[in-house]
């Protein structure tokens, strides 16, 4: 029952690269900061939350600069995960038909690659809103420079991005932690257990084993 035992279900295998983890940490961290600061400014009733940053004035700057981090880390995220995240295959369709095994059935879920179809869907949403939020955010930051028309269009578009992300981010955070034990360490240390890989990403595990001569 040791993690060093090859091929045991406890065996720890590398599932993410350090660079991936860094990009994910920056993108996710900035995203969470943006949500907290943004919601505390958007809703007067949540204004008390601005106190954790030091008041509304600081919160505005927290939002602006975590927005910059979001824009930069998002660019890396889109580039490094585009091939795995944005290209769907027949298995993904089957996965969707079964609700990913989360809702009404756990049977007949096709084995998934390193990203399952739900994660791919989240990637596509994230890539689209990354572009939308970065562009409208910069315009809203400098309304005099961009002028009335562009600015006034950016306000509802920015809120549309929030509306389409808010629920998805919560679900993504849940599925990556409480919903699927064993996932957090893939984000932090980069390791997963063989049992976790077999359950969540069997197709990827098969490719991994083939690559490592098993």
């Amino acid at each position: 029952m040791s993690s060093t035992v090859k091929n045991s279900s406890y065996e720890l295998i590398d599932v993410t690269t350090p660079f991936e983890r860094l990009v994910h940490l920056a993108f996710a961290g900035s995203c969470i900061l943006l949500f907290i600061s943004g919601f505390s400014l958007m809703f007067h009733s949540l204004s008390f939350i601005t106190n954790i940053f030091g008041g509304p004035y600081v919160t505005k700057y927290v939002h602006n600069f975590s927005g910059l981090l979001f824009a930069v880390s998002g660019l890396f995220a889109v580039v490094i995960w585009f091939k795995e995240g944005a290209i769907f295959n027949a298995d993904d369709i089957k996965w969707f038909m079964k609700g990913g095994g989360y809702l009404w059935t756990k049977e007949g879920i096709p084995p998934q690659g390193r990203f399952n179809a739900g994660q791919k869907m989240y990637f596509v949403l994230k890539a689209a809103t990354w572009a939308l939020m970065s562009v409208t955010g910069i315009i809203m930051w400098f309304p005099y420079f961009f002028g009335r028309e562009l600015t006034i269009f950016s306000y509802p578009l920015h809120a549309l991005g929030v509306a389409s992300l808010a629920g998805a981010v919560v679900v993504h955070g849940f599925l990556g932690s409480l919903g699927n034990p064993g996932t957090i360490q893939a984000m932090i240390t980069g390791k997963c257990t063989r049992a976790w890989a077999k359950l969540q990403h069997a197709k990827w595990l098969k490719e991994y084993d083939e690559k490592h001569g098993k």
Partner: protein
Amino acid sequence: MKEKIMLVDLSKCTACRSCQVACKNWNGLPAVPTINSGTYQNPPDLNAKTYTLIRFQELEARDGAMKWLFRNDKCFHCTDAGCMKACPVPGCITRTESGAVVLDSTKCIGCKYCYHACPFSVPQFDAATEKMYKCHWCHDRQAEGRIPACAKACPTGTIQFGDKDAMLALANKRVKELGGDASVYGDKHLDGTHVVYVLTEKPEVYDNLPVHPKISPLIFLWKDVLKPFSMLTFLGGLGACALYYLIKGPKRPKFEEGGEKHE
């Protein structure tokens, strides 16, 4: 305090700029150095240190001669105020009983939302303090029973300040007297502005004056539709996760003892 109206009868304005000076004086605002751009209008626009401004406009009269149009420009103190709708900081833009829309610059975070949300682009940004400033209708003077400084200083009776009904009656009476293209401007816009003009020309003749001022529908889409919707999706996501966790629970990997070969 009763609801007030500031009546600005442009037919009486001589562009003496007493209002401009009195406003600077009362609010302790310094002069802003400007460059002569070929007009008497100075400064060229409202700015963070100029809450009210006489706009000078040259108009060609019917006989080919030149005619001046003067307009005392400042915050209209709208009943349906776009700036209040857009401001993210509670208590930063508030309304007094008399109808003043007061921007407390000490609470301003410099997001500039109010600038474009205002149909008249009234609030002005000061880069040095990173805050917005605008006419506050001398709410401090009003609290002491005084009238705003610009109205006090106006020597021609252009700017008058009083109870709503009396001022609107006066405005309508004056428009009848003037006849022609004269009209009352403001009382029907934005649920009634608290600064109301008597215009001598059609509204479209005046520079920088929207004919039908209204808060952009995009501001409503932002604040009244998508903002609550984003909270809805957030809570929906949270609720769905909580329910899922309670009903289905986590998806745990199966661990087996020993080092058996993987398929």
